[in-house]
């Protein structure tokens, strides 16, 4: 099951003086939904195009399904692509577009029609066969592009930001449809996106790219809870960073002095690369901090603070809390429930945290 379908080894690609891919190595597993996530210009499209065969790497090796792809033209690779602008052929009907790649297979009209019907059903476009491709909406074009690629049963489907041109509602709908489609057909999907929410909700595994390199490949949960470095932590979601100093190891764990929160005991495991005396950054997500309401007060360790700012989102409220005795402000997110009032600015609050969810960098 966990056979790699794509193996990338030290792939380099430069455009003049720009290094677009700086030694990318990764394995993409047969049948998984894999996302490439990173800021604009980090090389995601270049990597995808190198896999598809549209860019020749300067050095390094790309293998698909165990075959070295060096020198294999794009039209001979077992991959198909959904282009960012969909690249729908404007002089053809929907059926002409979807069946475009089939003509080479010489299947006969009946079989071709049947496959086109089936592919259109898969993307919920039944009855669109004779529609002029130019008259389609953005979402429909996207479905046609999907059907056109999937009808060829590629080993890997490559998608370059396929949802970025759609409005929010449609995008969310297509996210789950795409996910379901991938499960149904069992084809490996490689999705390029700069939308972290999209990557986290849709993928089995996510690769984070910065400046032409992959810095972390992991499941969405791991990516969120255990980012590999400060850069990833800052990129994914929001995180509070507090100055901290590593103390000595004890039998219960390692002591860490965190500014504003005081002395904590952390599992030695999670302190690992740092040693006593190191100045580090302690990262904690806003939802791992809790404002204590009176009735919840009690045993937990707390820090005192004052609400300096507040953003209300309906289901959630984000408080910026200035910690007592420091210049440090942390963001705390609270789910709004019936017995929690929205606190006014300037309120004095006590906050509590979960030491297990603190990550040191």
């Amino acid at each position, binding site marked *: 099951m966990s056979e790699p379908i794509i193996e990338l080894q030290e792939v380099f690609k430069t455009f003049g003086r720009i290094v677009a891919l700086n030694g990318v190595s990764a394995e993409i597993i047969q049948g998984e939904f894999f996302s490439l996530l990173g800021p604009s210009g980090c090389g995601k499209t270049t990597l995808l195009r190198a896999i598809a065969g549209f860019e020749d790497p300067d050095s390094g090796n790309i293998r698909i399904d165990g075959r070295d792809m060096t020198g294999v033209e794009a039209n001979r690779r077992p991959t198909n692509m959904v282009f960012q602008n969909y690249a729908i052929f404007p*002089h053809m009907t929907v059926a002409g577009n979807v069946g475009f*790649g089939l003509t080479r297979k010489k299947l006969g009209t009946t079989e071709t029609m049947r496959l086109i019907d089936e592919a259109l059903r898969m993307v919920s476009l039944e009855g669109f066969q004779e529609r002029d491709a130019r008259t389609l909406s953005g979402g429909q074009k996207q479905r046609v592009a999907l059907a056109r690629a999937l009808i060829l049963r590629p080993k890997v489907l490559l998608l370059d930001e396929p949802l970025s041109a759609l409005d929010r509602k449609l995008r969310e709908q297509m996210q789950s449809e795409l996910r379901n489609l991938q499960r149904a057909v069992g084809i490996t999907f490689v999705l390029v996106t700069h939308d972290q929410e999209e990557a986290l909700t849709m993928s089995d595994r996510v690769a984070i790219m910065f400046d032409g390199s992959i810095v972390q490949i992991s499941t969405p949960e791991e990516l969120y809870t255990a980012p590999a470095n400060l850069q990833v932590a800052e990129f994914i979601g929001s995180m509070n960073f507090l100055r901290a100093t590593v103390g000595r190891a004890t039998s219960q764990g390692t002591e860490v002095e965190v500014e504003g929160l005081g002395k904590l005991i952390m599992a030695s495991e999670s302190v690992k690369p740092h040693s006593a005396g190191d100045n580090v950054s302690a990262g904690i997500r806003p939802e791992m901090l809790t404002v204590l309401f009176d009735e919840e007060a009690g045993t937990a360790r707390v820090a005192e603070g004052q609400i300096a700012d507040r953003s209300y989102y309906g289901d959630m409220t984000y408080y910026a809390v200035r910690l007592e005795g420091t210049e440090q402000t942390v963001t705390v997110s609270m789910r709004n429930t019936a017995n929690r009032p929205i606190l006014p600015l300037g309120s004095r609050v006590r906050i509590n945290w979960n030491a297990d969810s603190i990550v040191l960098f």
Partner: protein
Amino acid sequence: MGAAAIVRGRWRFRLPSGLVLVSPPLLYAILLLALPIAAVVTISFWTQNYLDLDRTFTLANYREAWSQPVYRVLMLRSLAVSATVTLCTVLLAFPIAYFVSFHVPQHRKSLWIFLITIPFWTSYLMRIFLWKVILGYNGVINGTLIRLGIIEEPLSFILYNVNAVVITLSHAWAPFAILPIFVALEKIDRSLLEAATDLGEGTVRKFLRITLPLALPGVLGAAIIVFIPTVGDYVTPRLVGGPNGLLIANMIELQFKKANNPPLGAALAISSMLIVAALSLIFVRLNRHHLRDRS
């Protein structure tokens, strides 16, 4: 009041100013295009009586134009020459336009297009004489071929006949064909070609299935642009066409001048104009139809 009045005031001011703006070109177009055509149409229904014009309405000129074999021969020859020139020009222009659009780096393209128009800096007559030098009995081609030992006698079929007219006109009209084809090729979204590659097509089939159909409007435009004016050309056949290379336009010229029969010349001119217009319309229609069927 306030804003609405100002807006309405602006509109009232703008409408006439628009008309005023287009009126000079409009007047120009009427004076130089519509009036002469109207004059030719009118004359074609009159009769020449030695020195003066008989202005009673008659269809005699058209009867003659459509029944005399000599006019039919010249008309058919003109159409055949124009069709050949159109075909040659478009076949010649397409690879050039394709090369500039697909293989010249973006920042060099305008330079290339500029260079292609350079022949237009010299007068058309000058270019015809150059072709005479190239194609002539003792011309560049014959001289070279004889010196290389490929032929012993100078070739005589390349000047003072229809071939020479076709060669000269094809060269002269090439830029007019290159430009519309180039524009059509430039408009093709390159990701469509990548998509076709991605779906498994090689270079040739990609060209036939994507590039060519999408460039077809430009090719049609080029064909029409070349076909229509070459039917009316009379300078080229006069200078390089020899006795058997004369075309309908030469006959029209003859009627207006030496033969002193402008009404017949006008009837011939109007007839050939209608034939060309009809053929062009049919051509465009057929291709539209074809395009729609393919999709």
